[in-house]
């Protein structure tokens, strides 16, 4: 009897280990393709000492470069952004961020206020799978799930990714236990150039009212920042492609909200020329996103505003921080110069 129990326990343990191994193997690694899927998970190794937290969708992780902000202004920052990151995901990521550190400024890119409903399972996964387990993650999952999704598959991602068994590649084994760092404090570098050839116009909409749920989360975000002693700054990145068009009517609503609640709001679309964005060289996808050259220009411009208006000190006198950031700068420059990918 004792032997039977021992053997059965061993079989159960072995099965558990096998399933855990299969789960680790089958989860996407986001190392060579869809690298934005790795961004959220990279935060936890850098989750301290950031004066500024950028939060939002691709318009933050492609528009601001923390190494430039450090190099030029001595401001430490991290970008908590992922592809099509919805506003409630940003809220819960911010809530989680405050449990790790106390940034002085939170910069939120407002493009996602147009999405009042969960959009895309794949993007949900890129944002949520990378989060560490906490009440914030649970709430983020519950707020984000599309109709086809279920909570259990977030707890056991094998239930979602099991069908990848037929697509297993060398990358899945290589990054089974540890992953490479793909971002520079959340910034996903793009060095390619694809000029924007024509100015976009958005399609006319039947209703320009921003979804109430988004405005509620914006308000929750403001309150959260206030409770944690951080200043919320709203921005809109300068890109304005027809696919992700920022309508004047939306802008007015955000500007009104900002005025009403005494929150700063910077719409960089009309400031693109002043910032020095050259749409023939500063975008890698014909104006949808900035490339590294455009992002550096915007960061330089915004860094000036951050250091002038929000009392952020130049921390380049801190030897330990200098050592850490110098390493980051080296890695950043190497990739910028094409020495690494």
């Amino acid at each position: 009897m004792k032997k039977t129990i021992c053997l059965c326990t061993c079989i159960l343990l072995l099965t558990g280990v096998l399933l855990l191994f299969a789960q680790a193997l089958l989860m996407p690694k986001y190392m060579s393709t869809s690298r934005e899927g790795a961004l959220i998970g990279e935060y936890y190794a850098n989750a301290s000492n950031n004066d500024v937290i950028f939060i939002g969708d691709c318009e933050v992780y492609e528009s601001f470069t923390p190494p430039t902000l450090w190099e030029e202004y001595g401001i430490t920052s991290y970008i908590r952004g992922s592809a099509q990151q919805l506003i409630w995901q940003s809220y819960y990521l911010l809530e989680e961020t405050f449990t790790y550190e106390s940034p002085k400024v939170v910069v939120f890119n407002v493009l996602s206020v147009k999405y009042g409903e969960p959009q895309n399972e794949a993007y949900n996964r890129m944002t949520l799978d990378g989060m560490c387990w906490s009440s914030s993650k649970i709430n983020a999952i519950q707020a984000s799930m599309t109709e086809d999704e279920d909570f259990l598959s977030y707890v056991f991602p094998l239930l979602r990714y099991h069908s990848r068994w037929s697509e297993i590649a060398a990358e899945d084994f290589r990054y089974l236990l540890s992953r490479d760092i793909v971002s520079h404090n959340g910034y996903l570098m793009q060095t390619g150039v694809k000029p924007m050839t024509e100015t976009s116009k958005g399609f006319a909409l039947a209703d320009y009212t921003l979804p109430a749920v988004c405005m509620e989360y914006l308000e929750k975000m403001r309150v959260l920042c206030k409770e944690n002693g951080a200043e919320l700054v709203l921005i809109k990145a300068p890109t304005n492609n027809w696919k992700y068009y920022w309508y004047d009517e939306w802008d007015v609503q955000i500007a009104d909200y900002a005025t009403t609640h005494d929150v700063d709001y910077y719409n960089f679309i009309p400031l693109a020329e002043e910032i020095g964005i050259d749409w023939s060289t500063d975008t890698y996808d014909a104006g949808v996103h900035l490339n590294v050259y455009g992002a550096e220009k915007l960061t330089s411009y915004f860094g000036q505003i951050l250091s002038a208006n929000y009392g952020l000190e130049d921390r380049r006198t801190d030897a330990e921080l200098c050592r850490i950031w110098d390493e980051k700068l080296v890695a950043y420059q190497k990739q910028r110069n094409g020495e690494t990918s």
Partner: protein
Amino acid sequence: MLFTSFSFVLFAALTLLLYFTVPKRAQWCVLLCASLGFYLLCGMEYFIFILYTAAVTYLTAFLLQKRADAEDATVAANRDTWSKAERKSFRAVEKKKRFHILIVGLLLGFGMLAVLKYTAFVLEGVNSVLSLFGGEVGIPSLLLPLGISFYTFQSMGYLIDVYRKTARAEQNPAKLLLFVSFFPQLLQGPISRFGALHQQLIAAHPFDALCFRSGLLRVMWGYFKKMLLADTAMVAIKTLVEQSDTYRGVYVFALILLYSAQIYGDFTGGIDITVGLSEMMGIQLTENFNRPFSSKSTKEYWNRWHITMGSWFTDYVFYPLSVCRPMQLLSGHVCDKLGNGLGMRLPVYLATVATWFLTGLWHGAGWNFIVWGLLNCLVILVSRELEPLYRRFYAVFPRLANSRIWGAWQAIRTFLLMGLIRSLDCYRNVGLTFRLWGSMLTDWNVGELFSGGLTSFGLSVADWAVILCSAAVIFAVSHMGREQPLRHRIARMPVAWCACVCALLVAVLIFGAYGIGYDASQFIYTQF
């Protein structure tokens, strides 16, 4: 709530936990609550229909039983005074009265099924006639409650049993409601008999480790069949049917094979989950399958496939029809006019046609189902007529009858024939199906299948590997269990049992077709 959903797994686990923790006398209450809860979770709107069926069944059975008891009491009271003829005459009158009660009960029970399931079909037929004269009637969109065919047939079978006095009516309405709504078999059967199930449902069942192990293994086996074989093949079947203009000829043959695999995995897998779950609770349901694809004739196939439905139709439709008075009169008349041979066979043949017509209708409101039923009937009757020829054939080749190769050929022939007829269920259009059968003779483009065709209709090489490997495993297990189910042997060896359950779990979790990217596919038989 699908059997393959996480919510069902959780629901079943909680039910089992409660079932074995409450006092034994309350176990049936747990089952009743779980059954009603399960049906409510499937859809609140369906609930009223099952309550209606249970109410009609209870009241009719109650009246039948009351009359039967009164009849017996009267006969007993007059045992010494009545002659045998008087007793017989009294019983005949009473039987007629009970028959009238039964008819009302059946009309009310089957009436709801007929209205909900067949109204649109009948009105479409009416419209096709009226359209010749420029007329049209509106077709109402009626709700079709889940599992209605199964619980209606089970309930009506019980009424007939009470009428025939082979079962006593249940006095407790809650216990009868449990018989009608027992959740594991609610959506796709098996269609249980009152005598075989009812006492088990209300009896106390202490935890039996052997039953539990055997049941759990069968549940896992059901998931294996459903999620590896049936649901992986489903994507291809959908494509082959939806693009039937493109996929003709040899692709129709591919569909026949794939659909045979799918429906086998789907239906037997679903029944394995049902029977296994019941077995875990100590309840033994009637087996619905007995290695159907090893059948050597259509008749044998129908004795091995969906056994409970077949026996229901045999007991409650075929036998009563073939011995009913009008049929006897007709038989006598034909015997007189055309000879005994035809006269003796006619009632059987007419009853067979009627039974298969109704079996087709039971499967669905559509001409494809009716033609499917009648084609099965045709094959069975032709086989019967050809029996003397077979006998002569085996007399000439006596070794053939016991030859394994000949047996294998017969099994393959039956499998293909049943698959061919079953494809009516896929295309759901009689004309189209016949044309596509014809295309197998005219466009036998087999080369195309092996030059990329096999992976052109939604199945990757990996999917084919899953289908073929799981089919091979299922075949091997079925073959090994032809004397005694393999799980009974495994359940007696705890370590082997644990290893098998874990292996099945790993196979289902990794290679099963579920989650995002797959259609959450209902079990096919829940539609019927």
